[in-house]
């Protein structure tokens, strides 16, 4: 009885292949919701600072006057609070993990461009008057 179990186990192990994933030949396992890395698009940022106020690790620093947005990726725990609460939807979590870094902190710095000036003549029937 034991010999039959042993024989079955051996044949399953020999002919079954490894139980592990052959990374990097096979890509790493991930799903749609996997919280890999935080991506920021500076174009539509309103500098409301909600992401900074709600970050549990104070990884994001926003300076309103200087119009800068900065994150220390080593502090970021990819919790997704900033993604959920951003009113302008400029933050996203991607399923791919970040590359390794050599130094701490791993800062990503952005200068937020000024919004385009409002066109004073827009919607006016007789422009220039």
């Amino acid at each position, binding site marked *: 009885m034991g010999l039959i179990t042993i024989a079955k186990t051996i044949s399953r192990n020999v002919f079954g292949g490894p139980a592990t994933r052959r990374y990097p030949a096979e890509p790493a396992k*991930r*799903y749609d*919701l*996997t*919280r890999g890395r935080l991506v920021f698009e500076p174009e539509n940022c309103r500098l409301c600072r909600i992401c900074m106020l709600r*970050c*549990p690790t104070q990884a994001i620093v926003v300076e309103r006057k200087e119009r800068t947005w900065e994150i220390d990726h080593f502090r970021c725990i990819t919790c*997704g609070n900033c993604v*959920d609460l951003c009113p302008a939807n400029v933050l996203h979590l991607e399923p791919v993990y970040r590359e390794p870094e050599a130094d701490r902190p791993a800062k990503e710095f952005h200068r937020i461009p000024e919004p385009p000036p409002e066109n004073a003549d827009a919607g006016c029937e007789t422009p220039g008057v």
Partner: protein
Amino acid sequence: MTRIVVPIGPQHPALKEPVNFRVVTDGERIVDLELNLSYSHRGIEKAAEQRDFIRVLPLIERVCGICSHSHATVFSKGIEEIMGVEIPPRAQYIRTIIAELERMHSHMLWLGVAAHEVGFNTLFMWTWRDREAVLDTLEELSGNRVHYNMNEIGGVRLDLSPSQVEAALARMPVLEERIRAYVGMVEDEETMLTRFRGVGSLSREEALSFGAVGPTARASGVDYDVRKDDPYLVYDEIPWNVVTDTNGDVYGRTKVRIGEIAESLGIVRHCLENLPGGPIRAEAPKAAPPGEILSRYEAPRGEVAHFIRTNGTARVERVDIRTPTLANWTSVAHCLIGRPLADVPVIVAAIDPCLSCTSRITLVKSGGDLGKDAPPPNGPRGWSR
């Protein structure tokens, strides 16, 4: 007879996390034990006082890696009760699903570690391979394998789509078959039985007097499970059973934990198949009214209790976390007396110690005359945390 003091830890190959035992042995037998904890103290309770309810949940979750959802849920539950917020049924079911999946992967990890402690590395590899199915399910549902960040005050952050539910249910039959294999293995495997049977025996009276909780207590016949005795989430609505045993030794605790994996699988399946519709969160105020609450939850290791005091602001004034491992250490210290030194890893592993959870610091007012309560001049013996 010469007595030898063997220090085990805080750095030791047999330990996963730092803890220090000063074991006094007489030959091979342990005659006395001193336990030094709190090497993983991080100051989470103090840090939690400075964060509002949105920022504090990821912090509370990180008290422990493997029972992260336990801490997040017991904290959210406590705050919601102080605020008087009732979370919608769908959110309760989702929280239950994540909680039971967490219990499953925690117990499977434990089974592998217990087998590893006695040298049965094959079972270690097999259980951890099968555990991947549970972790994949959790990653598919929440985005992360541990630290799911699923909760917010008032409900859950993410909803479950029908495809996610289907994918989760598809993994269940294989897991069920593997659990049956483990039950068979534990009952028949002679090498495991020799190391587990009769080791670390805790009678029912001892378990009750030392305040053991969780599978450690349930293996000694103490029928205490917070999910049945102080129900929360949906545990009083769905059919499930508390697993107890009368052996009281490491073998009994193994049987209880494997039984609990099977029970949790049934609960997850039931919840996934009967998920109610509706919203996943309720409106919760920014600040909590002043109040105090002791919130309890059955974590994989036993009863975790958070004492929360709020003072009308958007932060807690005090959160005191009493984890199950902290409650179980006295029973370990008792079980080790009289056993050979080689049983230390097995008996310690049998309570499923989570040292990150355990480390809390207690400040004792000193200075002035404490009279008969004064500690001895060379420091307190036994407990020092």
